[in-house]
């Protein structure tokens, strides 16, 4: 697994390096807020020092991971195979699209579309189940929450 190990090592080092950059950016932005105030620490004080501290510690993590010390054992460290990766990406895309269309198209349509597409993406093929699931989640859930429990759920442009 030599190749797999170094792949993880590079990724970990890269990820912790991005963390380091993030902390530096936050420290930089905080410097623009006042560090001192008439009463003591100003709005920029805590984030500035936290940013510097975080950058310093994550720098040590970059070193540690480059030397291979921050490696997982077990299932989770392995990168997914093609089908697994596709599944994950599809789920993410599904949530993102749902978030985007939730208010314009309304809850019922969003929930129905989300349920149907996700079920298909995860490999369900029985059309009856898909449609029933979709209707229950889109319309059934809406009815329970909007009408009975008075949870305000979005109604979109088309009245759904």
């Amino acid at each position: 697994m030599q190749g797999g190990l170094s792949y993880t090592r590079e990724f970990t080092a890269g990820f912790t390096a991005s963390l380091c950059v993030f902390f530096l950016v936050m420290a930089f932005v905080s410097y623009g807020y006042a560090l001192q105030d008439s009463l003591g620490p100003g709005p920029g004080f805590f984030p500035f020092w936290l940013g510097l501290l975080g950058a310093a510690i994550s720098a040590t993590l970059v070193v540690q991971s480059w030397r291979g010390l921050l490696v997982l054992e077990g299932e989770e460290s392995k990168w997914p195979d093609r089908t697994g990766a596709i599944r994950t990406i599809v789920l993410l895309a599904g949530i993102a699209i749902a978030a985007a269309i939730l208010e314009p198209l309304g809850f019922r349509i969003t929930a129905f579309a989300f349920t149907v597409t996700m079920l298909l993406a995860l490999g369900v093929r029985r059309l009856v189940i898909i449609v029933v699931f979709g209707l229950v989640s889109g319309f059934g859930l809406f009815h329970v929450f909007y009408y009975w429990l008075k949870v305000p759920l979005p109604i979109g442009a088309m009245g759904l």
Partner: protein
Amino acid sequence: MDSLAHLMAGFSAAMTPAYLTYALIGCIFGTLIGVLPGLGPAAGTAILIPITFKLDPTGAIIMLAAIYYGAMYGGTITSVLLNVPGEAASVITCLDGHQMAKQGRGGTALGIAAIGSFVGGLFATVALVLVAPPLAKFALTFGPPEYFALMVFGLCLVSGLAGKSLAAAMVMTAFGLIISLIGIDPVRGAPRFTFSVPELYDGLGVVPVVMGLFGIAEILITAEQRSRDMIRTSFKGLFPSRAEWRRSWGAIARGTGIGFFLGLIPGIGAIVPTFMSYIVEKRVSKTPEEFGNGAIEGVAGPETANNAYANAAMVPFLTLGIPSSPTIAVLMGAFIINGLTPGPFLFQERPDLVWTVIASFFIGNVMLLVLNLPLVGLWAKILEVPFKYLAVGVLLFCIMGAYSLKQSPFDVWVMLGFGVLGYLFRKVNLPVAPLVLGLILGPAIETSLRTSLEMSAGDFGILAERPLCLGLLIASALVLAASALSLAPRALREGEAEV
């Protein structure tokens, strides 16, 4: 023993069929609400306030309190089974509870959580009855400087959450702390790090963040695996082994103490006692390496602490009228709408009402246990639903839950973003719990320091002049020193280790 006589009267008043029914409905509704991620006790209680308009004040309050406790247990159910914390306090339960569920012992986890919650709640209510007024005075000794010191102390305990790498835990804590500062600052009331995004003025919500970090990340990690091992929940798996029982009792006892004392301090937030209980259990355990992999004390302790805290939080609420959490604030709203103001006045004016409500706390705790314990096996079976259906359902509920917090799709985006982050964190083995601790304690630390300085007109000496505050700060320093010392040899070894 005046209180005891009052309590007896309260019991006889509370045991009417009507009130018992309200308590039952409240427990059931509450559990269902708690099971829905994001909806949480506060939203759930708020939603059900209109229903309580139709009841008499005592009945309304009994039902709302039952909903509150029920919702907390419902949150435990999703944390254990699905790794989805409904609110910040359930986060700790995810750590070991979900691992237990993956090992087929979900029923055990839920069972011990129910039992621990019951014991914790019972003791807290008993203590409330016996010593409410003097306890109220204790609550008052905590002013802004003491809060600051207590939160700092809580933060220093994060080293107890560190696995192999203290640096990793510290980075994650710093990350949580720094993103907690996004939003309007308590100093000038001006926005920080909001980059003109109006939804960020109130900061990243804790609930969407933890739902993403734990729930969404878990689904993503599971999705990418070739096939998920079917989780078999055997009947034997429902009961803890004898050894586990023994370990749990200690955790339950300690959790009760921790939860109770912290519950007396108004406004602490349920996350502090649950984190503290977890850390204490890890410290006293003979097998600390089990924590994070399904140690039963990691569920028993925090769940007990959580419920003891919730029951004890009724002390500052009933005796002083100070709500300790948004949910209790809603409960207080219900009191006020019904023309009652919680506080010492109410104890004197309407002892019948107050003691009936307290009696119903007892009843509610018992009811929850009776309701949930037999259902534990049923709940655990949820995990046997094939992933492709379960994931879609859970995701849909998470989306709905995140949206319903503030009727904003932005919170769904936050949840998604932190879902991706949570996934990446797990790939590189960075611990997520310290992030949550930082996220929650950050604003509290900064605000309480700021308020303390307003009180003292900028004099830092106020922190040293108040004995309780000074004591807690010294304790924090000691804890930091101790963890540094104990982990130093390991860190040195890490530096030399070969992989």
